[in-house]
């Protein structure tokens, strides 16, 4: 990473795409080199946050949603103090972005790339699909996307929808798409182990998916995980993920993730 890893960028736009879910968009900084699966820490730019009214003290890790149209996009769900605060900001508000951070997705050569998203776990897959589309134009890119309810499902604008050859939606309550969870969707047409598998979502979903993929004999699946973190670059030691093969007992998600092989995690 270069020494300009800390940037203050003005917010260009906040655009709602579902109940509580929104795009946070910035002008793409010149020379920014980032990969799908990388993340940034976003925070109020005043030192300590104290001088910005209502700003949370700590930054928040957000995975890159997309890089397109000269913009850097983050898909965010207002679930707590910071994510609600970001959404309330007027265009032009400067934010501090530290990054890109973490270990991104690998892009293996495969005929089929299958992304499994639970809730706001949808976030990293636009940029992943865009890169795969560019690198492997003949590959088929599929998105399996689940939410609890229909109103939580993100609207996908035409260009975003077109990144995928297939978008299959489901809801826990059956109010949109197939009833049930994204893991349940694997029964049937999505059982081939030869695809490259990617997943992001809540812990119970990822745990169930990890077990399912293991029973299918899938190797090299890539899960993007979440954990609380204060820094994003290995010093605060907060973002621990239990290892399947200790010692050591934990890995730091910011340095050895957020993209990990699910077989290395003690779910």
């Amino acid at each position, binding site marked *: 990473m*270069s020494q300009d890893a800390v940037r203050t960028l003005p917010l260009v736009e906040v655009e709602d795409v579902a109940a509580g879910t929104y795009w946070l968009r910035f002008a793409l900084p010149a020379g920014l080199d980032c990969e799908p699966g990388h993340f940034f820490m976003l925070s109020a730019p005043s030192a300590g946050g104290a001088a910005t009214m209502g700003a949370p003290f700590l930054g928040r890790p957000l995975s890159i949603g997309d890089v397109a149209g000269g913009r850097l996009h983050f898909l965010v769900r207002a679930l707590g103090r910071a994510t609600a605060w970001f959404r309330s900001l007027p265009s032009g508000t400067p934010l501090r972005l530290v990054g890109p951070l973490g270990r991104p997705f690998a892009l293996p050569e495969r005929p089929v790339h299958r992304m499994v998203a639970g809730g706001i776990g949808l976030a990293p897959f636009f940029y992943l699909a865009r890169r795969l589309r560019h690198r492997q134009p003949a590959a088929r890119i599929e998105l399996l996307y689940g939410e609890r309810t229909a109103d939580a499902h993100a609207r996908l604008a035409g260009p975003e929808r077109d990144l995928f050859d297939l978008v299959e939606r489901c809801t826990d309550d059956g109010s949109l798409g197939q009833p049930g969870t994204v893991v349940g969707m694997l029964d049937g047409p999505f059982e081939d182990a030869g695809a490259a598998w990617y997943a992001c979502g809540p812990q119970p979903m990822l745990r169930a998916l990890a077990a399912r993929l293991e029973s299918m004999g899938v190797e090299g699946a890539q899960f993007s995980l979440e954990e609380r973190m204060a820094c994003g670059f290995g010093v605060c030691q907060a973002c621990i993920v239990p290892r399947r093969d200790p010692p050591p007992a934990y890995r730091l998600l910011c340095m050895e993730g957020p993209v990990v092989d699910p077989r290395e995690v003690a779910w």
Partner: protein
Amino acid sequence: MVDRLATKCGPLELANPVLAASGTFGYGDSFERFWPLETLGGFVTKTLFLAPRDGNPAPRIAETSAGMLNSIGLANVGWEAFVREKAPRVNALRGSARMLVNIAGNSPEEFGEIAARVEADREAVGCDAIEVNVSCPNVKEGGTNIGCHPGQFRDAVARVRAATTLPMFVKLSPNVADVVPFARAAAEEGAEGVSLINTLYGMQIDTELRRPVLGTGSGGLSGPAILPVGVHWVYKVRAALPELPIFGIGGISTWQAALQYLMAGADAVQVGTASFVDPNACREVLAGLDRWCAMRNTSIGEIVGAAHRVGERAEEPVWTG
């Protein structure tokens, strides 16, 4: 010409008064991607034990209204791995920045043991001083904090002193009725100086789940919330023990906060939690102090302890409206 930033903390000559605090700077090599290590007056490593420690279960942090709670649990690579894998690289990077190794143990005896190892490896490690973290739980005493127990505290400090001739700074806990007797005890047991303060005890409850947020229940509070607490104790220790060198720590995220510590009597400061939020925090605190000193035509050496010297107080501005 006098260098306006150069200062001393006890026997340590510092190119400037800004250090990175223990537990917020890794082992010295984590900020390489942001700015050169030699920028700093010095840095303090993450607390090292003899053996590696995994630390506590998640969640390990919780945001508060002006800071954060942590219950990392002193996770560290252990002394041997530090000597082998970290120290050589950090030494190559640090230039004039002073390296303080922060050490701890689960009993006063363990403090003595790791101090002896530091002494044995001091050439290989190239450290300039030891900072003694007495804020860890005392396993022998049922988990109470060594730094809050006068007898255990004195015992731990004395054992470190007996084991090494490196300059020793003792990092004091604010979780006591009065920090001054602990500072005095540290000095009496041969410490070259004190670092104050460490985090304050705190807890946050998740009201939906009806349980503490942190995996361990309670943790240590840091960040701007604790700035006035740290300034208070630096002022009190300086007043009681004017000759005892002090590193001021606690809630420094701006150069103005650093200036408060220096005027309260700190010889130098350590920036901690602010570096999590802004990796440039140390550098910006330093730049602000430099600008302020240049503008006032003064130096760090002149402002240390200024708040104690009544004759130096500036006149109240005259209202001419």
